[in-house]
């Protein structure tokens, strides 16, 4: 699918250029778009490539954010290390959750991941000594020391390109995986899970791998978000953060890796502008989702790719 690749690399290039051109307000918005694109792309591996519709990804997002903030606060870690802590948190919880949930059939999987995510949210709100509850935790982010220079994330440009770097790395990693045999196995599982099993594959094991990859990227994006906002709160575990990735992927295009970036862009721009003048912007959000789903079930990129293929 070279069209998908072109789109992704093109977008990355556009991001790279925009960083230098944009005024600071919009630039912050684009940083958020890039962070959420990591989240959305990771989620696509779960839903778009192995048909696992998880409603629990807020667990990994929240865990990633707290992984980063807590390691900075208590272990005096630098930004890059804290990112890996966030990624590791996502990875860890994914394995624990995955062992319970991956074996569940479609609807059970959706509901149980939603339930577990709600429980994590309740716990996070309760354990205020650890998480700061709703108020959350703020941290001062130390600069990245490169030996010859120190880069502070408080510099918006540094923040921007730091996030872009990890978006690019995540994308290149996933592209590699999808092109590799593992990716083909994922697609086979999506296309016909039982058939794949009857070709000799331990499908549950592969679904778990996809789930863990997806969750780790969720953790990474949570960490990037916490570093950018210098703040993590129990709110990151809320159901809203579990729903958003699904919406991004459905709107942007499942199974395309970069399609969800479009979903992120649309929903983020929508929220940025609409919530400013309309208090009940979630109402319009709901309506927008219904409209987009009506137009194309395959999402926008999926729709465009299908048209192109004809």
């Amino acid at each position: 699918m070279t069209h998908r690749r072109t789109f992704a690399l093109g977008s990355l290039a556009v991001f790279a250029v925009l960083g230098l051109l944009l005024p600071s307000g919009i630039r912050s918005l684009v940083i958020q778009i890039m962070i959420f694109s990591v989240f959305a792309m990771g989620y696509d591996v779960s839903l778009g490539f192995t048909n696992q519709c998880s409603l629990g990804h807020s667990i990994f997002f929240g865990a990633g954010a707290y992984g980063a903030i807590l390691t900075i606060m208590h272990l005096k870690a630098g930004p890059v290390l804290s990112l890996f802590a966030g990624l590791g948190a996502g990875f860890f919880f994914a394995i624990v959750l995955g062992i319970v949930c991956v074996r569940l059939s479609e609807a059970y999987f959706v509901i149980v991941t939603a339930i577990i995510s709600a429980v994590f949210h309740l716990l996070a709100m309760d354990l205020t000594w650890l998480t700061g509850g709703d108020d959350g935790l703020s941290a001062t982010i130390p600069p990245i020391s490169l030996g010859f220079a120190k880069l502070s994330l408080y510099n918006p440009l540094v923040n921007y390109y730091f996030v872009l770097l990890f978006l690019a790395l995540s994308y290149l990693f996933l592209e590699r995986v999808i092109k590799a045999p593992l990716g083909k196995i994922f697609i086979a599982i999506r296309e016909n899970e039982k058939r794949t099993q009857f070709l000799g594959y331990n499908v549950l094991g592969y679904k778990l791998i996809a789930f863990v990859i997806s969750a780790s990227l969720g953790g990474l994006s949570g960490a990037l978000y916490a570093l950018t906002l210098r703040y993590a709160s129990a709110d990151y575990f809320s159901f809203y953060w579990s729903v958003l990735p699904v919406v991004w992927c459905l709107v942007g295009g499942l199974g395309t890796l970069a399609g969800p970036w479009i979903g992120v862009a649309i929903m983020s721009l929508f929220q940025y502008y609409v919530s400013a003048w309309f208090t009940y912007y979630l109402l319009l959000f709901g309506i927008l989702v219904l409209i987009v789903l009506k137009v194309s079930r395959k999402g926008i990129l999926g729709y465009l790719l299908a048209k192109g293929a004809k």
Partner: protein
Amino acid sequence: MPEWVVDVLFLLMNGLIWGLIIALISLGLSLIFGVMGIVNMAHGDLYMLGAILGFSLYPIVGNFWLALIIVPVIIAVIAGPIERYVLRPYEGYHSVTMIATVAISFIIQQIGLATYGGIPKKMPDPWPISFSILGVSYPGYRLLIAAISVLILVAVWLFLYRTSFGILIRASIQDKQMASAMGIDVNKVLISTFVLGSVLAAIGGVLAAPVTQVSYLMGNDVALLAFIVVIIGGLGSLEGTLIAALGLCSLEGVMAFVLTPTQSKAAIFVIMVIILMIRPRGLFGGKER
């Protein structure tokens, strides 16, 4: 009788009655899933709508019981078109349908917020009489909730098991394709099921309104509990849902004697995980290998 026993029985009674309300709501959820294959993320908000409508209608019609009858009609009028125009086009595409219900949930919640406001309110007791049970006074309205819920559950049971349309609905749970091939108008079954399920949730809301805080967010906690019940009981199994609802809520009620609310929620959660590890389809759900 020692005091702690009376206390526990009191809690058990409360839990059981709450369990009856939850049973109504979970039954609706289970039906919608069983017949339509839809994970209805807006179910809690239909409960909320029922409660808010009940709360708002009470001063207008002056009579709680009249409100109890009017609200289901209003909900039916809302739910029908939702199924027909929003959900049915995506039939078969489960993640899309589920997200559509999430969108509907957001919309309903925001409408609730805009019209009713963000502040939780208390509703007056529709039957402020107490009965003396075992030497302790027990609120009459709660007993009425129990009576009404049982009546409704029996009515639903009679409908599903004794009327011809009810049999059609149960046939569709078993095998929708087969039902359609046998000439059953599946569309009628779909819309009726969704309306029935939504009405059950809304009635639960009206009944619950006087004993809980009415707020635009009240659906979230209840939805969570309903989902846990349906998972433990087994998706699509109506008996399973009933047993799980009563069992879980009584248990939670009694646990409140020794545990904090958060701890009892955690305990329920652990029970759910244990059951899932042993039986991945719930106690009464689906086929085994």
